[in-house]
């Protein structure tokens, strides 16, 4: 028996460890090498952790994410130049999902930009793109009065996700959050934990209500423990990257390297709305985005199947006898109970309801094009 999806738990090559590594070991975590970091892949069961986030709450260590502080008088105009989104329109205390494009419109990374205070932003990038994003920002900063600081090694990022997450944060000893009850989706607020400060944001990667807490390394273990204690009565469980991946897939959220890459224009990934052409000034990648993907460029779709076998990244997608695309992510959906996948397919095969087939290791399974996301939580305020 061999695994065809590579997961290494051997730290021989010295992947980086989270500041919370010892806590995870005590909790019995299995680890995986993700973008050069040895991170918890699961603590007990991928499915149990997934269901806990949908029905109660899960706590994730996502310290591998990269945090870059952008500050200075020109921070806003600089980010409008460097990024695809209309950052200047984001008021302090709010956040925006955005993209770093290259000159050809290809996606260098997808990021979240938090506007923390006047002239002060935090750019959160994927672990694997930490240096790509940092380099891009530095190269684009010429002529702007801004200071860039890579805070990745100083910050631990803890996500608490699930319907019970707000109650858990409110009950966490020592954590005092300014305006938690009124915090909107994609908004952030200051908090204190003991003598330290924490940035609490209502963001996440699970499709569930949840929060992300940016905390100084020295306070992180105590905060994790306090959150866990507060969550004990709410069904909170520690959750690993395996469940994080199935949760984001159900929520139709792209993963860099799967749905997004240098060869992908935002419009192909359904992210045209993330790019602001309303911005009056030029931004990196603008001309390519305005020109749009060429006619016939593949587009991202959702695919739903029956049975238990899921399409996986790289599996070919057929429309009749014609190969029309390939799967980028797929799994048997724990919440929905049937296989789901995201795939890039030819436009002619991309309309909802189109009946396609996925080649699953030599046998074809039926798959119908469905709108994304596959799963949407019941609406809540904000």
């Amino acid at each position: 028996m061999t695994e065809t999806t590579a997961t290494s738990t051997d730290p021989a090559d010295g992947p980086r460890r989270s500041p919370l590594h010892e806590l995870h070991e005590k909790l019995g975590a299995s680890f995986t090498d993700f973008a050069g970091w040895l991170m918890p892949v699961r603590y007990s069961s991928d499915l149990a952790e997934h269901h806990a986030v949908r029905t109660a709450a899960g706590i994730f260590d996502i310290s591998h994410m990269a945090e870059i502080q952008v500050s200075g008088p020109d921070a806003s105009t600089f980010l409008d130049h460097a990024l695809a989104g209309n950052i200047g329109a984001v008021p302090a205390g709010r956040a925006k999902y955005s993209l770093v494009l290259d000159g050809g419109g290809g996606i260098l990374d997808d990021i979240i930009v938090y506007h923390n205070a006047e002239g002060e932003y935090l750019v959160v990038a994927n672990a694997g793109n930490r240096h790509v994003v940092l380099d891009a920002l530095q190269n684009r900063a010429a002529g702007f009065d801004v200071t860039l600081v890579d805070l990745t090694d100083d910050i631990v990022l803890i996500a608490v996700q699930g319907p019970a997450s707000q109650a858990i944060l409110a009950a966490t000893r020592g954590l005092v959050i300014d305006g938690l009850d009124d915090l909107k989706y994609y908004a952030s607020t200051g908090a204190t934990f003991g003598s330290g400060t924490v940035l609490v944001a209502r963001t996440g990667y699970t499709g569930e209500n949840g929060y992300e807490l940016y905390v100084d390394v020295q306070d992180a273990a105590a905060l994790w423990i306090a959150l866990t204690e507060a969550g004990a009565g709410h069904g909170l469980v520690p959750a690993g990257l395996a469940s994080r991946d199935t949760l984001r897939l159900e929520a139709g959220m792209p993963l860099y390297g799967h749905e997004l890459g240098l060869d992908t224009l935002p419009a192909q990934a359904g992210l045209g709305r993330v790019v602001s052409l309303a911005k009056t000034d030029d931004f990196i990648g603008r001309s390519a985005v305005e020109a749009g993907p060429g006619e016939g460029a593949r587009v991202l779709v959702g695919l739903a199947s029956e049975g238990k076998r899921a399409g996986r990244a790289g599996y070919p997608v057929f429309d009749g006898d014609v190969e029309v695309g390939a799967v980028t992510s797929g799994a048997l959906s724990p919440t929905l109970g049937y296989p789901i996948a995201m795939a890039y397919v030819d436009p002619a095969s991309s309309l909802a309801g189109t009946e396609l087939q996925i080649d699953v290791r030599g046998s074809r399974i039926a798959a119908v094009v469905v709108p994304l996301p596959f799963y949407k939580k019941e609406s809540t305020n904000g």
Partner: protein
Amino acid sequence: MADRSNLQYTAEHEWVLVEGAIATVGITAYAAEKLGDIVYVDLPKVGSSLAEGTVVGEIESTKSVGELFAPVNGTVVEANDAVTANPELVNSDPFGEGWLVKVEFTELPALLTADEYATLTGE
């Protein structure tokens, strides 16, 4: 947990229990743990002939896909329908109720002892 004292192993993380001319085959706890929650198992049909070292089935978790290799040459005499119906048995009892197939073997290759397998997995 089943009695594991008579088990032999392969480098592909299968266990083999030889009783007379029949080899019962499953995957190890180590392999099940690495795969995560198993949600789909595809086993060779009764009567099919297996060639040692070839892929004869699939074990799929939410996270990834594992291939089942035939550890011996022979003919499948029984496939574990309980596992096909409830794949989580491979996680909950990999050496017992989570067995996969019984094979009437024609020849038995050299297999790993428990110690050799433990060395392989570093456990």
